[in-house]
């Protein structure tokens, strides 16, 4: 399937017979034409997310995870990106919707928590003014009511003396406070889909723990769908129900958090787990890094994008470098929930995990 340019149509496309999930991506492709070639940031991504569930998207820099989130929010619409595929949000198709229509959904229907609150907030306006602005766009209320709402929200996310801090500027907040204010801003219109892009990467561990707790509580309270994008497997394990591992713009493994941590089947997922020193296990003598570095998205390796770094590529009989593997049900997958994109036969993957990988991760 080749990417067609974004249609300019405005009205939501009527949904077909099949019922869509609350958020459903179907074969989403986001490509950027550049002077050096076509950057395939997202290349055929599909997943479904229901309300009240949390999806963790894991991947290294350049794996396409942030581009996906910006794509869902429609923030590539006025750029040069070539977007194809479908994004269904609560029965509406967003790829073919007009930029103007998607703009009205942002804030109220879906919102985003950015990584760096200092650059995501406007330094010239008070924190309160920025929350009030978003709220008044979506609600016909007076300034006083909106201000009251902003104070309530700041209190809700744990900012002390919210009635005073509402008039502070972003630079007057500490890092953790600023991230809380960002979360308050994202929540101001009670969005049904919340996307958090590296929400705690810039924070210290003790503050990170506070923010993770807060996000978990708020999600339960608002029953929203949450997407957490991060490179930190610890953060993902804390928050996610389901996990999607991205590599080179594609999903290489998808499953419940238990699937990914207890019976991962993709060599890249094994590599991520082996690269990470862990506090909850005996200290291992050596980390088990993945060789090489993440691919350039202009020159994605042929066949399986991971094959140049994969230690098991020789066992695929040459398929690894020639053919792109399908995303297929994994061995231990219950009702097809656990998906893996790998050429290795199922039994072999399972055996490698049980006999070769798992013991090295668990023992010293």
């Amino acid at each position, binding site marked *: 399937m080749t990417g067609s340019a974004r249609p300019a149509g405005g009205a939501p496309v009527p949904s077909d017979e099949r019922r869509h999930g609350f958020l459903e991506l179907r074969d989403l492709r986001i490509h950027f034409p550049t002077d050096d070639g076509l950057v395939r940031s997202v290349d055929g991504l599909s997943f479904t997310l229901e309300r009240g569930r949390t999806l963790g998207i894991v991947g*290294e820099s350049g794996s396409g995870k942030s581009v996906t989130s910006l794509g869902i929010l429609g923030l590539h619409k006025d750029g040069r990106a070539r977007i194809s595929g479908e994004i269904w949000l609560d029965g509406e198709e967003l790829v073919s919707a007009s930029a103007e229509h998607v703009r009205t959904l942002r804030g109220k229907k879906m919102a985003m928590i950015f990584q760096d609150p200092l650059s995501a907030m406007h330094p010239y306006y008070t924190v309160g003014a920025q929350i009030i602005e978003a709220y008044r766009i979506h609600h016909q209320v007076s300034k006083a009511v909106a201000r009251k709402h902003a104070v309530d929200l700041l209190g809700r996310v744990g900012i002390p003396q919210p009635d005073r801090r509402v008039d502070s500027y972003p630079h007057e907040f500490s*890092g953790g406070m600023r991230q809380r204010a960002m979360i308050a801003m994202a929540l101001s219109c009670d969005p049904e889909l919340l996307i958090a892009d590296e929400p705690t990467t810039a924070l210290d561990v003790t503050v990170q*723990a506070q923010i993770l707790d807060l996000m978990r509580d708020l999600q339960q309270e608002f029953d929203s769908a949450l997407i957490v994008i991060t490179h930190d497997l610890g953060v993902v*394990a804390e928050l996610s129900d389901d996990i999607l591992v991205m590599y080179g713009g594609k999903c290489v493994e998808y499953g419940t958090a238990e699937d990914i941590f*207890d019976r991962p089947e993709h060599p890249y997922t094994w590599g991520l787990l082996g690269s990470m*020193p*862990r506090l*909850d296990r005996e200290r291992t003598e050596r980390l088990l890094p993945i060789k090489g570095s993440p691919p350039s998205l202009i020159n994605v390796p042929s066949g399986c994008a991971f094959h140049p770094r994969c230690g098991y590529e020789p066992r695929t009989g040459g398929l690894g470098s020639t053919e792109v593997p399908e995303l297929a049900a994994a061995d231990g997958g219950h009702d097809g929930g656990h998906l893996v994109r790998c050429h290795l036969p199922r039994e072999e993957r399972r055996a490698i995990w049980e006999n070769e990988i798992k013991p090295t991760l668990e023992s010293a």
Partner: protein
Amino acid sequence: MSESPEPLLSLTDVRKHFPITKGLIKRQVGAVKAVDGISFDVRRGETLGLVGESGCGKTTTGRLITRLIEPTDGRIMFEGRDITHMSQGDLRPLRRDMQMIFQDPYSSLNPRHTVGAIVGAPFRIQGVRTEHGTKKAVQEILELVGLNPEHYNRYPHEFSGGQRQRIGIARTLALKPKLIIADEPVSALDVSIQAQVVNLLEDLQNELDLTYVVIAHDLSVVRHISDRVAVMYLGKIVEIADRKDLYESPMHPYTTALLSAVPIPDVRRRAGRERIRLLGDVPSPINPPPACRFHTRCWKAQEVCRTVEPPLAELATGHRVACHFPENAPAGAVQDTSGTEVPA
């Protein structure tokens, strides 16, 4: 402190206060007490990890050790020589022996210099002549850190983040230093690359007999590479111990809280895990809380913590901690009188 041989580096009650000035005549109105009285030794061949949250003074400590900045007070000894107030000129020959690895491989390499010029700079600056010329020496070092020696004439932008960090490490190693201060050496790198660099640092240590001081905020990485670990809070060392002791039986409540805050990649344990939640943020180092600096966030704090500063006392062999009510303390060391509740 009962060290057998002479330590490579020794800090005694070192302080660094950055003055805050105001007005036309730059009258001093206060000071940022970035480092406020720390003492520790670094032994030859070991790796000392320095952890703490942002603003605790760990980076300032690193810069004091390498004398990129001059301490306000205290004494720094390197190989038995007092370098506390040494002039830049006198320090230059010493710089061969202590080098620094920086956090950001993008801003710590000059984009207009080739790899050969970057890694060769120490030879030029120190006036070192090698047997087969600088180029040969540089290429050997590039090979040592896992880079292709043919990349001698390339520029930093042609390399990935992990490779750039290797270039930085190659520059550090050029003159075979004795002590390397690594300030967040892997935090800017991707997970899979982090592991490569951590392994490289360990290999180099074994091969070249290096001593490391590793400054990092990631407690898992620090546990992996350190022999001993010092925990800093608001310009003070609150606990210093061997790796195993510190991670398995931390004594300072702050260390306990830090360890319990690290997210664990284990889904089954996320429900049952008991967490210590610290409230609020680290107070400002301009006006740190009196006595024990941690008392504003500590669940064990009593009256004495607000009035008397706890000394950094050795409660078990090689395990020093500054707390009135330490946890996991051996019986008889300090009486734990707290019956206060742990916040949920």
